[in-house]
């Protein structure tokens, strides 16, 4: 083990950490909001919106992110109306394009995960809510979402971790985050395993933190499924 090499590699990789974190935080939050909109279209009952949502989920779940990112970054810019359009100053930026394609992709996945959660909500409890006059957003916010969230959480935490790893594709569009820097380092040093090991440790730590946070949330949301706590007298 070459400790000196490992530590200098670590330092180089950690310098790219802010880029990875920024990509992650932005794309997960934007993607989550987008996913909510899409799942709402999907189960909302309007045939056209549902069709659109189905198509969206199909395309973004169905094709590799690598191809999506390539087409968003290199493909969109092929069109003159985009290059001359008002959004070009934004779309011109590699970072914006990377976040955009990451968010679009995770939205497709998350929408499907949320839908799975919604399916697990006991129909009887939905009925009880309808019977007191709840419907639409109120019903979703008060009854469906909390229960569905609980059921969707294990799968969603997986998706969030996946996003952390997917940020590594951003180097394709010249955004040099941790994995990209690692690969560049490898092509200088050819010490594949050592460099990747350092990168792996960074991702493992990040994802461990994310997963612990999710597990904590899951624990918190499962109160009603656990046995009564000892000495819980009101």
């Amino acid at each position, binding site marked *: 083990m070459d400790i000196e090499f490992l530590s200098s590699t670590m330092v180089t990789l950690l310098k790219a950490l802010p880029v990875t974190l920024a990509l992650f935080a932005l794309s997960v939050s934007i993607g989550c909001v987008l996913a909510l909109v899409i799942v709402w279209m999907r189960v909302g009952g309007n045939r056209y919106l549902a069709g659109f949502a189905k198509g969206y989920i*199909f395309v973004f779940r*169905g094709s590799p992110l690598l191809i999506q990112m390539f087409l968003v970054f290199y493909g969109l810019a092929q069109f003159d109306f985009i290059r001359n359009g008002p959004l070009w100053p934004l779309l011109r930026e590699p970072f914006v394009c990377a976040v955009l394609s990451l968010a679009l992709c995770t939205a497709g996945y998350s929408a499907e995960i949320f839908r*799975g959660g919604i399916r697990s909500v006991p129909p009887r409890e939905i009925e009880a809510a309808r019977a007191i006059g709840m419907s639409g957003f109120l019903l979703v916010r008060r009854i469906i979402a909390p229960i569905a969230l609980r*059921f969707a959480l*294990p*799968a969603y935490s997986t998706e969030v971790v*996946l996003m952390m790893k997917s940020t590594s594709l951003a180097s394709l569009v010249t955004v040099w985050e941790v994995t990209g820097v690692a690969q560049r380092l490898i092509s200088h040093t050819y010490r594949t395993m050592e460099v990747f090991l350092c990168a*792996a440790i960074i991702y493992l730590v990040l994802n461990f933190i994310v997963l612990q946070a999710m597990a904590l949330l899951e624990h918190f949301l499962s109160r009603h499924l656990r046995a009564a706590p000892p000495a819980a007298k009101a």
Partner: protein
Amino acid sequence: MSTLELLGFGSTGWGALLLVAAGVTLAVTAVALLIGAVLGAIVAAAKLSGNRVLVFLGSVYTTIFRGVPELLIIYLIYFGGSSAVTAIGQAMGYEGFLGLPSFAAGALAVGIISGSYQAEVFRGAYLAVARGELEAASAIGMSRGLRFRRIIMPQVLRYALPGFGNVWQLSLKDSALISVTGLAELMRTSQVAAGSTRQYFLFFIVGGALYLILTSLSDQVFNRAERRANRSMPSAMGQV
């Protein structure tokens, strides 16, 4: 050369090569998913067992294989696995190098990764099974195994199907990373075609479209399965 010619099935077209590659992708993913289903079920059972050691081991598995970039795991298994096999070969008197075939190494790597995802999907679905129904099974003296096979499994499958479909999608796309092992699956073949003809957009779009075709085929399978699994459920969602 025209687009049609480029994609045709004649001696100048890439059609045949791309279709074969799609078949390789499908095969690698299917094998990986099977490996992952077995691993996932075992790990989910460990995490739900309540036994502290098993829970810990299960968590280590899911944390590592979900947390480490896929590419590293593929490298580890492809190169690391080859070194191991070579070492064993040399110990037994064989000269030179031995290796895991790319297909086996790729399927194994993607399978191990997908196992960590499937474990979480199974666990979530298990938690969605109504407690009362499990009690009813215990009450007639069903053994743990029987209860699992007759009551839990069918319902876990019902609740797990959407998540399982997601994992299938993931594995389908993780299989694209196997290209570092030189396996001519869909992603690598698209890139080779793009690089050889310098028609990058054409072949990326065609590659993407082929992935979508694979997706739509598998979606149909999953939809049918979901419909079947949910025929016993009232549909409160579709109503006013």
